[in-house]
């Protein structure tokens, strides 16, 4: 199917994991795609995997000024923008005793502040109709230990799926959220855990997933394609959980 033919799309954090997989599926559905990333290594790997037709913007998702730059570059290259997948995020998990102000701010800067000001910066070039999909998390709902700051940041982003819907639907912009449960992505490798610690964590998480497995990035990407496409033309302010039932148990 070519559900996104003639559409232009931006994916933040598009060089690995869910973002990279979504970029592949957007391309397969006929969209022109831009992605953002910060890590030169994964940027190069993404370029090799996605090909030269994909626009790659090096931008720090926590930096408000950088969001203006992203919008300017998109305008120069695409002119207008039909689809935004705000996916860049950080999962910093720590017991409450181990948090300091800088760490707290970093999580909120990347997961909440950057996304908010990116939407603001993109408004002048967003089409009517347009679709924005926010990547939130099952952690907005479940009381997982060590997820206090991460969960709060995702709950804040989820709230914006509703409030920005109310504010932007008059301009034809649909805002929705996807909330992944445990997905097998490089994110887990960034938690700084030993292999033993990772295995213990994986077992603990799996015990809470009715589907008894981790999801794949492609399974989240398919939901994003759905919400981005006209298939979801009457779906506004919704949260689609892709969590194998974890948020339900």
């Amino acid at each position, binding site marked *: 199917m070519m559900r996104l033919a003639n559409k232009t799309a931006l994916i933040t954090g598009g060089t690995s994991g869910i973002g990279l997989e979504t970029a592949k599926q957007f391309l397969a559905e006929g969209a022109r795609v831009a992605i953002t990333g910060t890590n030169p290594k994964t940027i190069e790997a993404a370029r090799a995997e996605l090909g030269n037709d994909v626009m790659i913007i090096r931008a720090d998702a926590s930096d408000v000024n950088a969001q203006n730059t992203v919008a300017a570059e998109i305008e120069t290259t695409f002119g207008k923008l039909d689809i935004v997948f705000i996916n860049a995020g950080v999962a910093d998990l720590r017991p409450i005793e181990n948090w300091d102000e800088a760490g707290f701010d970093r999580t909120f800067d990347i997961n909440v502040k950057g996304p908010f000001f990116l939407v603001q910066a993109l408004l002048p070039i967003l089409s009517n109709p347009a679709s924005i999909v926010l990547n939130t998390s099952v952690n907005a709902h479940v009381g997982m230990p060590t997820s206090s700051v991460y969960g709060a940041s995702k709950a804040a982003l989820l709230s914006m799926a509703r409030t920005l819907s109310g504010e932007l639907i008059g301009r034809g912009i649909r805002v929705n959220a996807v909330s992944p449960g445990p997905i097998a992505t490089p994110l887990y490798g960034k938690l700084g855990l030993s292999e033993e610690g990772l295995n213990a964590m994986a077992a603990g998480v799996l015990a809470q997933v009715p589907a008894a497995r981790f999801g*794949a990035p492609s399974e989240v990407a398919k939901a994003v394609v759905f919400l981005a496409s006209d298939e979801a*033309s*009457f779906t506004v302010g919704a949260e689609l*959980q892709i969590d*194998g*039932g974890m948020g339900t148990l």
Partner: protein
Amino acid sequence: MTAPLALITGGGTGIGRATAERLLSEGWRVIAVGLDCDDDLPPAIRFHRADVTDTAAILPALAGETDLHGFVHCAGILRHEREWQTADFDAVMQVNVSAGFALANALLPRLETVGGAIVMLASMWAIFGSAGAPAYTASKGAVAALARSMAVAWAPKGIRVNSVAPGWVETRMSARARSDSERAQRINGRIPMGRWAQPSEVASVIRFLLSPDAAYVTGTMLPIDGGYSVC
């Protein structure tokens, strides 16, 4: 490989019919069951007339079929102004909730064979109150809760269960609200998208939830309401 098979209660009219047509267009085989069907229902949709609250009367529709890839419980009734009467309350719960529960249980072996998926029709009324329709609202809240419990119970069998929560959709059920122009205008003004949904716009979401595209989605309630429930 034979084409996937779906059973849709209330599949002869409205959202159920739109879902049947959508699945047909993608190569599914569809059996619709219920008491009503449009005169112009495409013959490719196999319509089996039976009361959905009578499981024994429904199951013959699946004679000769061992596998079921999709079950959609779309049959629903609304008894405006009468739903404060216990008998009417019970009748609404019977069709909207209990029938879906009984059928899902009866269809479980067929769904398990092929890792099938279930979609239950909840409603935005699952989260709002309605002075005139206490049974309808209670039934739709129950549908969403039932879908969550079935999702958790049957995930180990490889069966996914979700619900959708349509807002204002142009169907026969909502004709009464549309025919009152003052009320219709009030409703339009309350929908952020400023318009009602076509049944096909609900069907496309049900189709997504039934498809492998939603392979890790279970237990969710997905609104299709043009933003009605966000403001």
